[in-house]
């Protein structure tokens, strides 16, 4: 199984900004310290080896959109602003005119998770089919998309889309087989409800669990989460806030923290814990620091358990 992140930011798209780019250049030049490179390969190697991630790269600013590679039909989780770049890639493929069926699993219908759809060119092409699955009732799913593409929110209305678009509600208490994947949903705590997905194929298990507030005050809910994550190869987790923020000023805002994610993944014997849905106010350096801290936290409380931890960034590819 291979996963590609098209958008990883929470709540609102962000841009890197001039000040942040300038800071990256400043740090790279300081690190280079007058060094010269004979070849481009040597320069590339310097960038990769000598510069820290937030200097040579960044986490990106597109909102939630994750693709699970499939030899059959394209399969994605959520339609945040990252979907625009996926759509662009589809339109650049040589056989882009061939009718294609797309499968989208929706965590929920908040703005940042659907805003990419009006900018998804395949939706405008007759012949394409787009399946939109979610845990919410079909009329609720449909209504969110319709509203987004109607006056005064957007100039191109829903009925101008060329593709055939189908909404399907998936029940939470059983496995579904969709496009070669086994899929199960878990209802999560978030305004209006959200759904986590456990997706399995070829003996590998991926959990996509964003926009979920794990308060750990209700044992039944916590145990259900641990069992949903159990032994997963990868858990993509809403680690938007620090724990202190999550349970004080941002209580009931519907998001979790980096260390709650680590605790749940450690308990569930997860292989790889990937932090996702980043706070828009955090810059690359802050997110990188949080990653180091979360790894340190898991080292302290994990007591010898091995848990790989990463922070998702736009265009990151993970192979399970």
């Amino acid at each position, binding site marked *: 199984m291979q996963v590609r992140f098209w958008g990883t930011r929470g709540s609102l798209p962000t841009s890197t900004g001039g000040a942040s780019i300038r800071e990256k250049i400043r740090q790279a030049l300081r690190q280079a310290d007058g060094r010269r490179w004979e070849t481009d390969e040597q320069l590339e190697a310097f960038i990769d080896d000598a510069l820290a991630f937030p200097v040579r790269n960044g986490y990106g600013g597109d909102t939630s959109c994750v693709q699970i590679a499939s030899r059959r039909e394209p399969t994605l989780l959520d339609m945040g602003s990252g979907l625009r770049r996926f759509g662009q890639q589809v339109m650049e493929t040589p056989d882009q005119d061939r009718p294609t069926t797309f499968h989208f699993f929706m965590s929920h219908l908040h703005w940042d998770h659907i805003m990419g759809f009006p900018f998804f060119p395949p939706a405008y092409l007759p012949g394409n089919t787009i399946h939109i699955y979610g845990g919410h009732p079909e009329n609720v799913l449909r209504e969110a998309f319709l509203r987004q593409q109607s006056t005064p929110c957007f100039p191109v209305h829903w009925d101008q889309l060329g593709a055939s678009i189908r909404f399907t509600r998936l029940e939470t208490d059983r496995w579904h087989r969709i496009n070669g994947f086994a899929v199960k949903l878990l209802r999560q705590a978030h305004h209006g409800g959200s759904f986590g997905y456990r997706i399995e194929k070829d003996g590998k298990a991926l959990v996509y669990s964003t926009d979920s507030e794990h308060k750990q005050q209700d044992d039944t809910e916590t145990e259900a989460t641990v069992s949903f994550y159990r032994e997963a190869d990868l858990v993509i987790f809403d680690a938007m806030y620090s724990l202190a923020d999550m349970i004080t000023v941002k209580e009931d805002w519907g998001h979790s923290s980096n*260390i709650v994610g680590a605790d749940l993944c450690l308990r569930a014997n997860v292989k790889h814990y990937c932090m996702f849905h980043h706070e828009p106010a955090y810059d690359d350096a802050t997110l990188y620091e949080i990653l180091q801290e979360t790894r340190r*936290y898991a080292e302290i409380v994990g007591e010898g358990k091995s848990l790989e931890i990463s922070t998702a960034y736009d265009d990151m590819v993970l192979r399970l």
Partner: protein
Amino acid sequence: MAQMQRPAVAVHLDDLLRFASELAEREGFAPDRVRDVELAVEESLVNILTYAYPNRTGFVEVHREFDGRSLRVSVVDNGVPFDPLSVPVTGLTVDTARRGVGGLGILLVRRLADHVAYRRQEGANVLTLTFDRPPPTRTGDPVHPIRDDIMETQFQRIENTTLLAVKGRVDHKTAKAFEEVLKNTLDEASADGSPVLVLDLSGLEYMTSAGLRVLMIAAKTCTSRQQKLAVAALQPAIQEIFRISRFDLVLPVYPTVADALKALSPDAAVRWRE
């Protein structure tokens, strides 16, 4: 799920215990883990035999189930409503007089089982004990892991200040007990007009987000009642966890208990002896 029902009298105790442990044995639990199951179920049953039916003889049921990973044993009675988990687990505190009836029994049950849950259902008390079957171990490994769900507290009142020493581990297994102890301590402190609570964490070895959450609940309670809460004497690993979770920004943290007392209650600082 299989079940066995017997009158709630001691003569049936062995039958009921055997009924629970037999399944553990059959499903390949190590011999000393089977003994843990027997001991935990025994403690729970003795509790029912002693307290559930003060004026009559009722029945007690044992339900057993194995799901491939865990053994679940429920003990059920129709006696007076009683949630044994509501008894604060104060561990080996010096203040034994403060320990409620059944406190030691349920402490033992909690230490032996991997998970304990209580519910009142259709007029019955249902206490469910879960025992996870450990994965097969390599030769030479200890068969029975070291128990890691021990949390102890020790309570002291100095002038207007309550000093609560917390020792051991506060994680998802012990957080509920910790929450209970803190709540009771704060309630008593409030009733006695004691506005300062200092947590001496010098003996705290391990804490996860589940424990930090309990601290935050206590902090909120204190704010609403104009009480002051501070933590002191954190071990280096716990200090790191406070920093990573940003708890050092929302709770006053002092290097030593003496520092905390000096800052919050000079009277208590004078009276306090380590």
